[in-house]
Structures are given as C-alpha cells and as structure tokens.
C-alpha cells in the first residue's frame, strides 16, 4: 500500500466540477508535483489535501490510515498530518519571525515556549535565517519570507508538506536554495507535494509528476529527468518551458550544484 493514496476526489462549485475523480499515489519521502494549465484544478487539489476545500467525495490514505475527505470531521484529521506553505506566505505581520514559528507549537500543541523557541532557532539557522528571528516579516525579502513560511510549516512536524508555487517569487539563486532544502526534507522522510509552473524545478525535483487538465488527472509520470517517458507530461512541459538543463534548482542526484 502506498504511503499516500488519494482517490476519487471530486470538488463542485455550483454546477461546475472543478475536480473530477482526481487521485494519485506517493511513497514516503517522495516529491510530487502538480502541473497543468491555469484553471486545471492544481491548487484546488492541493487545498483538498489539508481540508481547506470542501470535497463532494474522495478518500485519502496516509500510512494506511484512510480518511473520508467528504466527512465533516475530515478537515481536522487532514490538518493533523499535513502543513501548507501558501503562495502569499501568510506570515503574521504583527509577530516576529520567531513568534510566527512558535505560535502553533505553544498555543495549539501546548509545548513549552522555551522548547519551541529552541527548535525554531535551530530551524532558522538551518535555513540561513538565524539573524532574522526577532525581526518582523515586513523586513524580510521574498526569499526569506518563503523560507520562514517553510520553517513555520516544519514546526508542525507534518508527515506531508504542501507547497503552493514555492518558487514563484524567487530569483534563480533562491530557487536553487529552496530546491536543495526540499530535497533534504524529502531525504529525511517527509513527503512533499507542490504546485508549480516552474517546469525546471518540477523536472529536477519531482519523483512523481501529476498532470491535471480540466479537473482531471490526465497523466502521472515519474520525474527527475524521466518525465519525457510519459508523452502527455513531456508535451506539456515542452510547451510550458520545461528544460531541465537550465534548471536553477539543481538536480536530484547532486543537489549542491
């Protein structure tokens, strides 16, 4: 049984079906990328995985635990195992970077503030933000905000990390840094699902690529250079600027370069 097993997810907005029987599988430590044209349902699909999007039907299995995604109580269960990094980051502007990271662990998980701050500072140091702990998000660059948002998600110790366009606002150097970070997290056993339009990043980072079109999964392929094996995915990536050779995120086999 796959570690992540999402099946038959349907989302309706009035009479429109924005997701139609969508599903995918992933193993522990996989990086899965949702690709597809605008309006194909990528972000909607991502949001269903953390209970932000009401679904008509669908089920999600994480490590053998099956959740009926249409059930009213499913959102809470989904959020226990997943964390999301929004495209707009959503860092709380009235709190320091450190407090952004420790809010949920102290208020929700009731961990001691001292322990949470210790972990948060270690995480910030790992992400090269050790000197930013006490500043406000407004004083950070786009790339720094991105990493703080990822750090905040990691403080929840999720089994599943969801990222909505993680590299959309970053310069090529930062894209590479985020790529290295995601690969490190995956190697530590975290399963990562991202929505991305950056085909270079998708091609180099992904273990699996899910192509969505018109709310349906059109094709599923393996990534990391093998995307061309699936004709629909290869065609989409070629049309939308896929070129792993110029990928700034680095390759899977050698994430430092």
């Amino acid at each position, binding site marked *: 049984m796959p570690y992540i097993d999402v099946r038959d997810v349907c989302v309706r907005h009035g009479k429109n079906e924005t997701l139609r029987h969508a599903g995918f599988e992933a193993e522990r430590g996989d990086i899965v990328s949702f690709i597809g044209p605008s309006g194909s349902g990528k972000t909607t699909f991502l949001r269903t995985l*953390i209970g932000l999007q009401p679904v008509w039907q669908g089920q999600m299995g994480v490590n053998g635990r099956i959740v009926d995604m249409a059930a009213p109580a499913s959102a809470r269960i989904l*959020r226990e195992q997943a964390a999301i990094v*929004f495209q707009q980051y*959503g860092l709380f502007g009235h709190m320091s970077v450190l407090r952004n990271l420790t809010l*949920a662990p102290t*208020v*929700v998980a009731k961990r001691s503030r001292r322990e949470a701050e210790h972990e948060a500072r270690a995480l910030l140091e790992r992400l090269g933000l050790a000197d930013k702990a006490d500043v406000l998000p407004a004083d950070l660059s786009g790339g720094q905000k991105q990493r703080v948002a990822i750090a905040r998600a990691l403080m929840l110790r999720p089994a599943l990390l969801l990222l909505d366009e993680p590299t959309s606002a970053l310069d090529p150097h930062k894209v590479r840094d985020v790529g290295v970070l995601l690969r490190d997290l995956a190697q530590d056993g975290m399963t990562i699902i991202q929505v991305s339009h950056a085909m270079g990043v998708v091609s180099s980072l992904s273990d699996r690529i899910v192509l969505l079109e018109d709310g349906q999964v059109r094709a599923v392929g393996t990534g990391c250079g093998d995307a061309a094996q699936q004709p629909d995915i290869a065609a989409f990536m070629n049309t939308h600027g896929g070129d792993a050779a110029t990928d700034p995120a680095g390759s899977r086999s050698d994430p430092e370069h």
Partner: protein
Amino acid sequence: MTRLDFRPVFAHLPFLLGGVGVTILIATLAFVFGLSLAVALAVLRFENQGAWRRLSRSYSTALTNTPQLSQIFAVFYCLPLMGLMVSPFLSVVIGMTLNAAAYLADILGAGMARVPPVYHEVALTLGLNRRQTYLRVILPYAGRAMFPALANHFQIMILGSAMASIFGVEDLTGRAYDIGSTTFRILEVMLVTGGLYALLSFALTGVFALFRRTMERMV
C-alpha cells in the same frame, strides 16, 4: 474692565487637581468596557452576513448619530425606571461605554477588514481554533493597525467626560464649577481647567507614543 485674578483658583488647585483622577477614571472605565463590547460587535458583523450583522451595524448607526449627552440622560433616567438605582458616576460610565462601543466597533471593524484574508486560512491550517485565531491573530493585527484611531478616541473620551459634571459628578469640570460658584471667578477657573485638559491630552499623546514603541518592540 475687570482684571483676571487667578489667586482664588490657585488656592483651590489641589481640589481641582483631584478631579483629574476622576476624569481619567471615567474615561478609562468607559473605554475598557466599551472596547470589550466593541470587540463583540465587530466580531458579530465580521462573522455574519444576516440579521446579526444588521443588528451590530444598527447599534453603531443609532449611537453615533445621536448626542452622547442624550444617551447618558437616557441611562440616568431609564435605569431607575427599571428598578436599577445607580449613582450618577455609574450612569455616566454606562452611557459613555455604550457610546464608545459604537465608535470603537466601527474602528475595530475597519481594522479587521484590513487583516489579509490568507491569515484566516493560515490560522486554520496551523490548528488554531476560532477563539485562538481572534485572540492571537485577528484582534492583535487589527488593534495595531487601528491603534492611532483607538488612542485618538480615548483622548476624545477624556475631553467628552466633562459631560459628567452635568450629572453632579465631581470630575475636573464638576470641581471647576464648584470652585467657580464659591469664588465667583468662573472665567479664571475655566481657563485653568482648559489648560489642565490640554496638559492631560498632551501627556496622553506621549504615553500612547511610548506604548506604541513598546508594543512594536514586543513582537
């Protein structure tokens, strides 16, 4: 032409200064209780679309479009009719509280509308419940964003509390009337009283600026 003579007023200065404390107390109590009520009103209109929202808005409309003095009179005379005997001091505090809540709900509502929509979803995905989201995210953000307006309203309430004197409360203005009626130096005592209100207002401006800087450091 009569010359100004402040000596009788200065002779009563300790008594007059005692009224400053009463003025601050009235405004502070009304502000704190009014803010608490305003939070409830603002959340009501923020969370709901239907009748509750209209009710909250109607409250603010009604109380911001009628004189505060009339509202205090209403409290002063209506509560005894309902069998509730309250002191003039308490009547003034209740009347000012109800009025402040209407204005402060509008201010907080504007602040809450400025909270980025993504914050609600972030709070949800971090596991915060509704109460925690309001207490930790929405209200602190709105409060900081609207701090100048909130501080400004408190200053208006300090000055507006002079109405308490009409109901026999010995606040700064009430004591000024007392001194004026015994010394017959009403112009002088009112000039000194006006100066004290101005000093109080300037001092509050400083206190709020200090409070804001402290608040910004406590992030």
